[in-house]
């Protein structure tokens, strides 16, 4: 208490203790253990409480960061969590999976000289949220009187949950339609248990349901009902579409349909949502490869590789077309994967998958690449090196090179504008070209982060509230349709 700025600056960043790499790569338990209360307080004391709050502007949902950290220094952990929740409905999730190093922590004054010395905002957020969950009965947020208006949300991923959390508080009757038998979207089918324990997600969803949000599981909009059905048959006043990208891309090379070739979506859904890492207690099978090749360099590729090694693969190799510095995955995830014994074959891209007579994968042929001139994304373009190939054995290939827009909803909603890639076109507030229909998250932007989807959800919730309120005023004509 009462430290000077100089004293605060002198404290080293506290890293979270974690399972040793050689041990954790055989189990699905979470990797970092989280802070102890003492560690949390000590880390919180590093915050300089800057007046201009650069970290808050670095956060897509504007969490009041210095203020919640100040509460942590006073050991008012539960209050800290509840303060975060005024802006972020999923702090335990975001504390774990947000790319803080490119957002709030990237602009932290403590990290100005040395990026690694930024205040560990994500770790503190996680600590506060975990403390609240483990030490308090869930407290239902204050809810305004019901206003009699019904809003449908399609998809229970990060954006849908955010819209639901906001609108239920504004007094709407909120119904989520979820295609799967469990809620959470990518948080349950995509992100593995060792990065985001499913009980964390379940608690958040339970809290929403306790607040009055209705979730209809096993409900695929576009098939069960169209968006128009939601208005005409079911009487909703507004619809939010947050269904994620949801269509895997495969490579255009021979062997993509062999047994043993998976999209990352399939591989991770089997392991995470269907819990085949607990096979045969859970009855969905997954193939445990001896040699696993994961194609791609994003977070999903890291998740796939780290899942493969935990399922019992002898050797897991990441094959990525560009160089290490250009990997879209978070540096921490790449580091974790490396520690766990995953090999990287960089500047390499598969040109053929080999097979045996039974149609199973036996190996892969790759072409070597080098870096050329920067492309439109600013990254140096990978250029194939002529006649430079190599081969290696593998019996399982996970393709993790991104996704496309799932057309189930857009095809059945022809009067809603999509761009040439099939993603839904919206204004900055999530309004689509179709009246009273809003969208946010990966189905608008393409693959992005949990927190950016939550930011989109927050903006859409505001727009829905504003538009529906104004609609009741007959003299008002919104200018956007």
């Amino acid at each position, binding site marked *: 208490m009462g430290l000077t700025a100089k004293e605060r600056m002198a404290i080293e960043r506290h890293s979270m203790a974690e399972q040793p790499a050689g041990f954790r790569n055989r189990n699905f338990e979470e990797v970092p253990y989280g802070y102890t209360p003492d560690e949390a307080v000590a880390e919180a004391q590093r915050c300089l409480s800057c007046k201009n709050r650069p970290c808050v502007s670095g956060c897509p949902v504007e969490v009041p960061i210095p203020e919640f950290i100040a509460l942590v220094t006073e050991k008012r952990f539960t209050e800290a969590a509840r303060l975060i929740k005024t802006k972020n409905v999923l702090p335990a999730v975001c504390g774990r999976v947000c790319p803080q190093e490119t957002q709030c922590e990237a602009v932290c004054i403590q990290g100005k000289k040395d990026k690694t010395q930024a205040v560990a905002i994500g770790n503190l957020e996680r600590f506060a949220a975990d403390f609240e969950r483990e030490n308090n009965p869930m407290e239902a947020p204050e809810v305004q009187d019901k206003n009699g208006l019904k809003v449908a949300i399609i998809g229970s991923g990060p954006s849908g949950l955010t819209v639901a959390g906001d609108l239920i508080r504004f007094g709407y009757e909120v119904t989520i339609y979820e295609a799967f038998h469990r809620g959470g979207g990518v948080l349950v089918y995509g992100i593995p248990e060792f990065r985001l324990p499913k009980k964390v997600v379940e608690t958040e969803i339970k809290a929403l349901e306790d607040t009055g949000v209705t979730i209809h599981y096993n409900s*695929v909009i576009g098939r069960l009902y169209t968006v128009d059905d939601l208005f005409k048959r079911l009487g909703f006043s507004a619809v939010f579409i947050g269904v994620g990208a949801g269509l895997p891309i495969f490579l255009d090379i021979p062997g993509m349909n062999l047994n043993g070739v998976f999209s990352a979506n399939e591989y991770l859904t089997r392991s995470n949502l269907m819990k085949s890492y607990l096979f045969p207690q*859970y009855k969905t*099978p997954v193939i445990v490869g001896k040699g696993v090749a994961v194609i791609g360099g994003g977070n999903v590729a890291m998740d796939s590789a780290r899942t493969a090694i935990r399922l019992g693969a002898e050797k897991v190799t990441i094959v990525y077309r560009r160089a290490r510095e250009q990997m879209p995955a978070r540096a921490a995830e790449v580091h974790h994967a490396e520690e766990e014994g995953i090999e990287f074959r960089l500047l390499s891209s598969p040109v053929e998958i080999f097979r045996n007579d039974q149609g199973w994968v036996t190996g892969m042929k790759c072409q070597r690449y080098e870096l050329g001139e920067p492309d439109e994304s600013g990254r140096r373009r990978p250029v194939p090196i002529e006649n430079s190939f190599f081969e290696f054995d593998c019996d399982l290939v996970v393709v993790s090179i991104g996704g496309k827009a799932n057309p189930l909803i857009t095809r059945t909603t022809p009067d809603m504008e999509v761009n040439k890639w099939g993603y839904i076109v919206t204004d900055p507030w999530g309004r689509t070209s179709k009246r009273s229909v809003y969208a946010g998250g990966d189905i608008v932007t393409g693959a992005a982060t949990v927190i950016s989807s939550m930011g989109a959800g927050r903006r859409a919730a505001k727009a829905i509230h504003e538009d529906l309120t104004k609609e009741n005023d007959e003299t008002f004509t919104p200018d956007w349709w």
Partner: protein
Amino acid sequence: MYELVEKSEIFNVHKMVIKAPGIADSMKPGQFCIIMATEFSERIPMTVSDWSTDTGTITIYALELGISTLELARMKVGGSLYAVTGPLGTPSEIRHYGTVVLGGGCYGIGGIYPIAKACKEAGNEVISIVEARYSPMFYHEKELQQVSNQVFYATSDGSRGKKGKVEDVIAEMLERGARVDQAFFMGCTQMLERCSEATRPIGIPTKVALNSIMLDGTGMCGACRVTVGGETKFACVDGPEFDGHKVDWRELQQRKSAYTEQEAVVYQSLSHECLAEKKLRGEL
């Protein structure tokens, strides 16, 4: 949710009538549901053979074959399924073709019923052909007869109708000079392939309902991908019906056998339960 309201068995094929009002409201011929018996079960696609908006129910015929269908087979009336998702898949294209032949085997005997019914309503001459190992294994008969101008039977042992299979009945029809404008087939992969070969020489437009392995059923995972006319398609959203003359059958068979080993493991992990003993004890 998803209460099992009626159940009966015909030689390992289990008729299950399930409460699912929303699905019954939106169902169209040729579509399917993805079903989980329990929280621990696999998600398996099941053709919907009948539905009623009055009772809010759907009817499936589950052929007991592995662990997932065994779990369904063990369910009792009054119990509930953990999850039923649907309708899924692109509906059958129903229009006035002229003469339509529908061939069904195993679960397809029930599965072709809604397509037959819709084709009949669209003014087609409907000829249904069903196959089984022997006579008592046919089911859903009366219903199919009601929506068909003619029903032919084929049995492996000759105990009813033609001794042989669906394609043998078709060959005979074609020999007699019958005109067929469209064929639909539903059943195991071998049957679909054989029937497609039977209609290929004279170029009868042929639709087959493919039954590849699925996970989510919304196009999100690609587990169900099949090669049709040299292009990769997702059976769950682009299908399940495809041109039978363009399907890469060998690849489909191989992909369907991907989990044979795991299926054996999970089957053996079940506690053994001797049904004969249970019957003796009067528990069945």
